[in-house]
């Protein structure tokens, strides 16, 4: 009995000692970046993209010696800490709390879904940890007033930016094309139907469209505004209702799992032979696979396409990132991945600029950061955060999809803006304009 007790005691002591032995470096010897990613749950595909892209960026920076911190007089390595938000608000709160209070991260990067990010912002605000949010699109993230968001920086296109650019494209490219083809008067307004997800994301786009029309006095008439519940799969009736209103173009604010049935059901079941626009999260290989022939001639907004690279200064960086990611993990990293990849570089640059790991100094460095654009095209070719709401500004492109018999899927070509376009927008033969 005594022997057994002694054995248990030795095992217990050994476990305590082993638990105390970690490879963690003393504070200040490494830059600890907490990556908020949905590693499990419904958004885990995107979460893995976020994590793996962050890992790729950290590995690249570490391979070059790490991040120079003037206060320490040396370069220190980046250590990533994974915070799985479980694709839920509660999971995000747990993960962020742990990373801040137990792992003592210096800075946070990532965060997918506006709802999930909103739920843990209060924790970040209380602890004043700099946070580069790369996966939420609602502008409210850095504009809300109920939480102190001064430590939060938004490196993803907001609904305002995205909605505004699609609306401008419709006015300066699609409207003239319709009027010319059907011999309508040049001043005839575009008849626009909006089909939007009943969520802050969808409503954000709806507002952005209206504001852009009003602020720029665009010749666009909104003839239908229809909402659908998030995750909806049956759009036949709502599309029938839209058809009844005779639009020229249908602007859809939906995620990939919604956009595919919208376009499929509209063209196949309803005979809605119109131009459809899709917002930027749809520019994904699964969208091309899912929408099949029904995507032909449709419009997809893009910031990081799986199948076309904007010619210009980001082309080489795009190819390198996509190839490196594919070699290391297999597959395409997705837009949340690329934003997080850039986010880790932004974090590293901010620490170098601050010359310290002090969170307030890093926050100040982020507020004034000016970095050359990396993989994604940015306005003025620079990554910086706006002084009012700390948002970086992206140069988004509009792509038109064309059927490619060799791959049995559609493939995109950039049709807007003028500076990046590969070809001109065309109306398909089967297109039917709306009637006044």
């Amino acid at each position, binding site marked *: 009995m005594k022997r057994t007790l002694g054995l248990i005691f030795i095992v217990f002591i050994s476990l305590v000692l082993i638990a105390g032995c970690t490879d963690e470096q003393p504070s200040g010897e490494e830059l600890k970046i907490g990556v908020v990613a949905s590693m499990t749950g419904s958004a885990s595909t995107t979460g893995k993209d976020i994590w793996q892209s962050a890992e790729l960026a950290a590995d690249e920076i570490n391979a070059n010696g790490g991040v120079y911190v003037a206060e320490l007089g040396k370069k220190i390595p980046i250590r990533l800490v994974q915070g799985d938000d479980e694709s839920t608000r509660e999971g995000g709160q747990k993960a962020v709390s742990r990373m801040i209070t137990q792992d003592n991260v210096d800075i946070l990067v990532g965060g997918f879904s506006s709802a999930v990010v909103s739920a843990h912002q209060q924790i970040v605000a209380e602890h004043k940890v700099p946070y580069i949010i790369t996966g939420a699109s609602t502008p409210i993230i850095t504009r809300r007033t109920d939480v102190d968001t001064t430590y939060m920086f938004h490196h993803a296109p907001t609904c305002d930016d995205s909605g505004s650019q699609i609306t401008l494209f419709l006015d300066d490219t699609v409207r003239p094309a319709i009027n010319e083809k059907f011999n309508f008067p040049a001043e005839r307004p575009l008849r626009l139907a909006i089909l939007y997800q009943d969520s802050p994301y969808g409503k954000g786009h709806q507002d952005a469209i209206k504001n852009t029309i009003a602020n720029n006095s665009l010749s666009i008439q909104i003839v239908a505004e229809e*909402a*659908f519940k998030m*995750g909806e799969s*049956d759009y*036949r009736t709502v599309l*029938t*209702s839209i058809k009844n209103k005779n639009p020229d173009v249908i602007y859809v604010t939906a995620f990939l799992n919604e956009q595919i049935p919208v376009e499929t059901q509209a063209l196949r079941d309803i*005979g809605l032979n119109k131009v459809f626009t899709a917002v930027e999260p749809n520019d994904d290989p699964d969208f091309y696979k*899912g929408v099949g022939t029904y995507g032909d001639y449709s419009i997809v907004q893009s910031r990081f396409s799986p199948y076309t690279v904007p010619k210009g200064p980001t082309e080489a960086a795009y190819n390198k990132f996509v190839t490196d990611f594919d070699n290391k993990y297999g597959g395409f990293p997705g837009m949340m991945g690329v934003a997080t990849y850039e986010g880790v570089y932004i974090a590293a640059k901010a620490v170098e600029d601050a010359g310290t790991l002090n969170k307030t100094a890093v926050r100040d460095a982020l507020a004034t950061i000016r970095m050359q654009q990396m993989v994604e095209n940015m306005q003025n070719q620079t990554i910086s955060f706006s002084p009012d709401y700390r948002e970086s500004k992206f140069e988004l492109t509009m792509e038109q999809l064309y059927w490619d018999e060799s791959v049995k899927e559609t493939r995109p070509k950039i049709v807007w803006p003028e500076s990046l376009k590969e070809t001109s927008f065309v109306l398909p033969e089967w297109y039917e304009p709306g009637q006044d």
Partner: protein
Amino acid sequence: MVVSSDLIIQVMIWGLYAGCIYILLATGLNLIFGVMKIVNFAHGELLMLGAYITFTFYAVSGFNPYVLLAASLPVLILVGVIIERTCFRPILGTGKLNEIFISIGLIYIIQNAAAIIWSDEWRTIHSPFEHITLKMFGVNLPLDYLIIVITTISILIVLFLFMQRTRLGKAMRATSQNRKGAMLMGINVERMDMLAFGIGAGLAGAAGTLWVVSGQVFNPYMGSIPAVKAFAIVIIGGLGSIPGAIIGGLIYGIAENFAILTLGGAWKDAISFIILILVLIVRPTGIFGESAE
């Protein structure tokens, strides 16, 4: 908005299609409840499995997905039998709480298993008839929807004949009506449980197959919303009543689509639950329910 008769017929057709999926799901749920008196919260996951089994057979064989219904149906029946034998039979009669937690646990287990096997990306299948649309009653009717409606009616007729004309079907009905009485008459009620669960799972699987061939996308988490609606339909139609599930499914499908047309998409789910509340106020046992239990 101008609501023409064509528009009403068109929306009725969309409602009928949606109703078919609900009917198959709710009928299976009701069959299981009728015989075993358990509520299987993981029923939507069986629909999801049906979608994936069809998808897998389709990817491997390239056959017409409608033909693959004949292959996916037996697989789902087998899955149902295994679930009944391993999960529900051991705890049957030990308390409702155990049954509820087993079925809730199954939701997570099946979802995660599916995510491991097939990944959690959204998937689609393209029906070979997706480009064929018929013009009937002045409106468009995609051939796929006609096939879905005919397939659903055929499945229900086969089920009806099985329940009414065969010894097994009569034994299941007897078990449903009076379990002890059925046992005293020499019916192996445990076998009836297994059969009911198997058929219920098969019906959910059939709903999954029809879901994917109609151009819907699916992933491992897609079963929850249809399952919630199937539960509401079961309550509207009356617990344990198969005709109730059929009528409830049709009411739901058509009402949802008219709500979208007249009130907007945000009202789709709300109208279903308004109907549920109204039915419960007027007839608490559901349309075809009996005042037992």
